[in-house]
C-alpha cells in the first residue's frame, strides 16, 4: 500500500530503550517517602467459618504500622456481581481468601507479623468440581446474593444462550454427525511482572493509586466507591499506570489486594505498596477459567455444515470477576466460525470453593474453538472429506450476516486457509506421515477485530496537545502492557497529523490527565486508539490550516530572505502566496507545512514547529489542543439470546501445524507452524509479529504444557518449576507468519485488532495434527505425553 509515510513501517517502540536499559519503572520499582510494605494473610481453608482472629501479636512486631481485618474496617464489596469483599468476615470460600493484612516499614516485619496473626476456623464441606457444586444438597458457596436474597443453588445468575434455526430438524437431516466432550484447564496468565499496587492519600482524603490495571477509568470508579465506604464520599482517585510487566487480562478487574492497600494506607496514614511474590501470583491471583464443553455438529453428504450444538459448563470458583462473561465471546465462534445455519448454545457457570477466575487473552474464545475445531476434524473424517476442504466449503465470506447477527465486512478466512495450508504443503503431507507418526492439522478462528461491545460504551477518547517545537503530546486512556499500543499510537498520530514519529510523545496513562477509555481488552487497543487519533488529527489539521492562512505568507517571506542570503542568485518563485494561502490549499506531512500545488518548493514549505511558534507568538494567537472520542458503530448484544453485532469488524485466521508424535513416550514435537491471519492492514511489522509470536507461544503452552493443578481447592503447582510455560527451547521450530491484508474500512488505515487471535486456534490445530499422525484424539488440554500414551493404548485395545 503506497501513500503512507509511517504506517506499515518498522517504527521504533518508544519505550523500548528504557525497557532494554532497566530504566522503565514497574510497580515493583516505585517507592514513596514513608512508604510501608503491605502483606496479606490468606485463608488456610477452602471453605470454613472464621471463629476468631487474633492480631495482638502481629501488631506488636517492631515496624508494624497497621493490622487490619474485616472486623475493624468498613465493608468494601467488589467484583462483577459484588459477591466478593476486600477482607473476609465470618466465612472463607477459597484458599486465597484475604483474612487480614499488615503494613510495616520493611517487608520482613510485614511477613513476620502476618505469620503471627492467629485465625481459628471451623472447616465446612466444600465443592471442588462443577458436578459437586450442582449435586442436590451440595453445600452453598454463597448462601445469599449480594442483595441479601437467599440462594438456592451454586449456579450463577447469568444467562448466556443462543438459538437459531431448528436444531432437532437439522440433526435429523444431517448425513454425518460428530460429537464429543472437551475440556480446557485453569491456566495462569503468568505475567513476568507480578501483581501489585501503591496507594497514597493526600491530606484531603483523595487517593492516588499506581495500579497494574488495564481499566484505569473503571478502576477509578471502583476505587471511588471504596472511598465512599471509608466515609470519603466525594473524594477522588487518581489512577496512574506504571510500566506493566504483562497484562494478558489480569488487569480487567480490580482486586482485593488493591482495596487492602487502600485500607492500609487509610489506616496508617502512609503510602502502602503491595506486590505479590511469584507464589502469591500463582496461588492468589485469579487464573484463566477452565471450561467443559459438550459439542455436536453435523453436515450434509457434501460436507456443508447443518447445525452446531454447544453446551459449556464453567467452574467460576468462589467469586465472580468479569471473567464470568467469557460466554459472551464464546458466542462468536459458536455461532459464526464457518457458515452454520442452525445453532444452539448454552453456558452455565457454577460457584465452587476453588480459586476464582478471571480474564485472559481470547476470553472464552480458545475454550470453545478447541471443541469446535477438534470436532470439525471428526466430522471431516466421518464424511470422508479432507479437513481443509470441509473448512473451505463452509468458509465465511465478506458481506454475510451470521446467526449471531455479526455483520461480516471484510473476511480473509479463505485466504488464510489457503495460505496456511499452502505454506505447510498440506495436500502433500496430510495423511501421508502416519508410518513415521507425523501429521498435519489446522484450525481457524473468528474474533472481534473492531472493538468488542461488552459495556454500554465501547468508546475511547484522545487528546493531542501541541507544543512550541512541533511535538504532539498524546493523552490516551488505553494501557501499554507490552503489546506495542504506544508504538502504533505514535505511528497513527504521526501519519494522521502529518509529523514524524519521533515528534510524538505518548503520555503515561493517568486518569487525571488522559481522557476516558473503557479499557484495553478485546484486541481493541490499536483499533480504538488509531481511530481516535484519526478523528482528532482531522479536526486538528482543519484548525492548523485555518491559522496557516494568516501566518504562512510572512513565513514564506522569511524563507525567501534566508534563501537569498545563502545564494545571492536565488530568485523567489513567481507565486501569489497571499492568494494561495487558503486553508484548503495546505498539506502537512512528515513535519512540513506546504502548499499542495507546490510541494517541493523550498520557499513555500515551513517547518511545523515554525508554524506553531508563529501562531503562539502573535497578537491574539492561539494554542492547539484537540480532543476526539471514537465510539464504534456496534450493538451491545442481548446475551441471553446471543444476538448483536458487537464489533465493527471481525478478525480471522488459520493456523496449520506439523507434528511428530513419539509412540513410545507420547511426546509431541512440533515440526513447523504456519499462522495466517487476516489483520486488515499491517500497521507495524515488528509489533504485529510480536503479538502473533507471543500469542502462539501461549497457544502452544495451552495445548501441551500448562495447567494450574488443584486438590480440594488448593493450588499444587505455584511456581515455574511445576507450572511449565514454553521456553526458547520449546519454541524451537520453524514458524511462518502470513498477514492477509483485507483493508478493513472501519479500521484505522485498514487495520483490525490482532492482540488475541494468535492463541485462539493453536491448540486444536496441534490436536488435529496429532490425530493425523497417530489416529488418536485427546479432548482434554493440555495434551500431555501421559494423555497421548493413554489414548494410544486405548486405541490399540
Amino acid at each position, binding site marked *: 500500500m503506497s501513500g503512507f509515510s509511517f504506517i506499515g513501517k518498522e517504527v521504533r517502540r518508544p*519505550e523500548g530503550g528504557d525497557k532494554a536499559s532497566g530504566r522503565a519503572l514497574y510497580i515493583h520499582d516505585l517507592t514513596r517517602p514513608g512508604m510501608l510494605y503491605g502483606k496479606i494473610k490468606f485463608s488456610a481453608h477452602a471453605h470454613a467459618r472464621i471463629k476468631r482472629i487474633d492480631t495482638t501479636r502481629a501488631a506488636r512486631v517492631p515496624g508494624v504500622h497497621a493490622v487490619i481485618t474485616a472486623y475493624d474496617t468498613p465493608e468494601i464489596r467488589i467484583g462483577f456481581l459484588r459477591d466478593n469483599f476486600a477482607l473476609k468476615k465470618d466465612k472463607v470460600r477459597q484458599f486465597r481468601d484475604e483474612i487480614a493484612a499488615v503494613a510495616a516499614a520493611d517487608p520482613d516485619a510485614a511477613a513476620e507479623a502476618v505469620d503471627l496473626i492467629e485465625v481459628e476456623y471451623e472447616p465446612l464441606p466444600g465443592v471442588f468440581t462443577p458436578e459437586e457444586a450442582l449435586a442436590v444438597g451440595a453445600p452453598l458457596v454463597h448462601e445469599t446474593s449480594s442483595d441479601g436474597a437467599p440462594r438456592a443453588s451454586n449456579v450463577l445468575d447469568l444467562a448466556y444462550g443462543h438459538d437459531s434455526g431448528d436444531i432437532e430438524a437439522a440433526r435429523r437431516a444431517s448425513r454425518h454427525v460428530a460429537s464429543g466432550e472437551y475440556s480446557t484447564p485453569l491456566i495462569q496468565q503468568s505475567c513476568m*511482572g507480578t501483581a501489585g499496587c501503591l496507594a497514597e492519600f493526600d491530606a484531603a482524603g483523595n487517593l492516588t493509586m499506581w495500579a497494574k490495571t488495564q481499566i484505569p477509568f473503571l478502576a477509578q470508579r471502583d476505587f471511588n466507591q471504596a472511598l465512599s465506604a471509608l466515609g470519603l464520599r466525594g473524594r477522588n482517585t487518581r489512577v496512574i499506570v506504571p510500566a506493566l*510487566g504483562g497484562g494478558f487480562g489480569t488487569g480487567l478487574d480490580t482486586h482485593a489486594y488493591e482495596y487492602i492497600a487502600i485500607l492500609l494506607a487509610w489506616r496508617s496514614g502512609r503510602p502502602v505498596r503491595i506486590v505479590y511474590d511469584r507464589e502469591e501470583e500463582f496461588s492468589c491471583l485469579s487464573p484463566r477459567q477452565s471450561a467443559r464443553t459438550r459439542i455436536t455438529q453435523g453436515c450434509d453428504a457434501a460436507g456443508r455444515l447443518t447445525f452446531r450444538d454447544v453446551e459449556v459448563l464453567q467452574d467460576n470458583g468462589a467469586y465472580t470477576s468479569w471473567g464470568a462473561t467469557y460466554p459472551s465471546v464464546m458466542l462468536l465462534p459458536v455461532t459464526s466460525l464457518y457458515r452454520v445455519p442452525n445453532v444452539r448454545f448454552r453456558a452455565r457457570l457454577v460457584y465452587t470453593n476453588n480459586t476464582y477466575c478471571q480474564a485472559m487473552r481470547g476470553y472464552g474464545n480458545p475454550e470453545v474453538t478447541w471443541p469446535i475445531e477438534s470436532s470439525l476434524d471428526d466430522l471431516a473424517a466421518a464424511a470422508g472429506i479432507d479437513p481443509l476442504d470441509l473448512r473451505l466449503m463452509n468458509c465465511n465470506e465478506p458481506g454475510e450476516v451470521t446467526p449471531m447477527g455479526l455483520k461480516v465486512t471484510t473476511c480473509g478466512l479463505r485466504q488464510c486457509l489457503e495460505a496456511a495450508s499452502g505454506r505447510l504443503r498440506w495436500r502433500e503431507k496430510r495423511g501421508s506421515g502416519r508410518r513415521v507418526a507425523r501429521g498435519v492439522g489446522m484450525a481457524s478462528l473468528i474474533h472481534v477485530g473492531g472493538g468488542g461491545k461488552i459495556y454500554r460504551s465501547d468508546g475511547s477518547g484522545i487528546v493531542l496537545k501541541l507544543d512550541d517545537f512541533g511535538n504532539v503530546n498524546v493523552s490516551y486512556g488505553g494501557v501499554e502492557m*507490552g503489546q506495542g499500543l504506544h508504538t502504533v499510537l505514535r505511528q497513527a498520530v504521526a501519519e494522521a497529523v502529518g509529523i514524524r514519529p519521533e515528534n510524538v510523545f505518548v503520555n503515561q496513562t493517568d486518569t487525571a490527565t488522559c481522557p476516558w477509555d473503557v479499557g484495553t481488552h478485546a484486541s481493541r487497543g490499536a483499533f480504538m486508539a488509531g481511530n481516535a487519533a484519526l478523528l482528532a488529527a482531522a479536526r486538528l489539521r482543519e484548525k492548523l490550516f485555518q491559522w496557516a492562512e494568516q501566518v504562512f505568507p510572512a513565513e514564506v517571506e522569511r524563507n525567501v530572505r534566508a534563501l537569498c542570503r545563502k545564494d545571492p542568485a536565488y530568485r523567489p518563485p513567481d507565486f501569489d502566496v497571499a492568494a494561495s494561502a487558503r486553508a484548503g490549499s495546505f498539506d502537512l506531512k512528515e513535519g512540513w507545512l506546504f502548499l499542495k500545488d507546490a510541494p517541493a518548493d523550498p520557499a513555500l514549505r515551513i517547518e511545523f514547529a515554525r508554524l506553531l511558534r508563529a501562531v503562539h507568538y502573535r497578537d491574539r494567537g492561539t494554542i492547539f489542543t484537540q480532543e476526539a472520542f471514537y465510539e464504534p458503530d456496534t450493538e451491545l448484544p442481548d446475551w441471553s439470546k446471543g444476538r448483536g453485532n458487537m464489533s465493527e469488524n471481525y478478525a480471522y485466521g488459520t493456523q496449520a501445524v506439523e507434528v511428530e508424535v513419539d509412540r513410545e513416550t507420547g511426546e509431541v514435537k512440533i515440526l513447523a507452524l504456519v499462522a495466517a491471519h487476516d489483520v486488515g492492514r499491517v500497521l507495524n511489522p515488528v509489533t504485529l509479529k510480536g503479538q502473533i509470536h*507471543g500469542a502462539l507461544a501461549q497457544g502452544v503452552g495451552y495445548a501441551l504444557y500448562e495447567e494450574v493443578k488443584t486438590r480440594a481447592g488448593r493450588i499444587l503447582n505455584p511456581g515455574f518449576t511445576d507450572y511449565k510455560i514454553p521456553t526458547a527451547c520449546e519454541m524451537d521450530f520453524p514458524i511462518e507468519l502470513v498477514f492477509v491484508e483485507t483493508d478493513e474500512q472501519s479500521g484505522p488505515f485498514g487495520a483490525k485488532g490482532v492482540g488475541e487471535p494468535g492463541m485462539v486456534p493453536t491448540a486444536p490445530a496441534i490436536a488435529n495434527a496429532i490425530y493425523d499422525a497417530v489416529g488418536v484424539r485427546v479432548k482434554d488440554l493440555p495434551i500431555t505425553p501421559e494423555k497421548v500414551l493413554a489414548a494410544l493404548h486405548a486405541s490399540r485395545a
Partner: protein
Amino acid sequence: MAHVVSFELNGRPVSVQAEPWARLIDLLRGPLGHTGTKEGCGEGECGACTVLVDGAAINSCLFPALEVEGRSVTTIEGLQDASGRLAALQEAFVEEGGVQCGFCSPGMILAAAGLLLRTQDPSEAEIREELAGNLCRCTGYAQIVAAVQAAAGRASSREGQGA
C-alpha cells in the same frame, strides 16, 4: 550482623553493608538502587534477575550477596556506554522486537551478553539453549533470538572491519 562487601559494579568500586542472608538482588535493588534488575520469582526459575558476575550469567536472586566480594558485577545499567547510549545488544532487542512488556528484558539481555562474551557467533540452538532459563511471556522468543543473532552479526562484522 551486617558485613561490608566490596566489589566492582559496572566498572566502579562499591562497598555496601549486607546481612549474611542477603541475596545479591537485595543489594542491587536496595541500597545500590539498581532497579533494572528485576525479581520475577525469587527462586531461580525465571531468570528475570540475571546479572553477570565476572562475565558469567547468574540468577541474582539465588546468589549470596557476600559472595561478590572482590568480584565484578555487571547489571543492565552497566551495558550502555558512559553517555547513556545503548549497547548494540540492547539496541538489537529494541529494533528486532525482543522487548515487549520489558520485565524479562534486562535478565534476557544479560543472559545473551554472557553468551556473546563466550561465543562471538553462536548458533540458533546455542542461543535458545542459553536463554532457556529466562522466561518471557510476551514474545514467544522468536524476536529475542533474532535480536541476539543480529547483535552477534553486528559484533562480528565490526571486528571484520577492524581486522
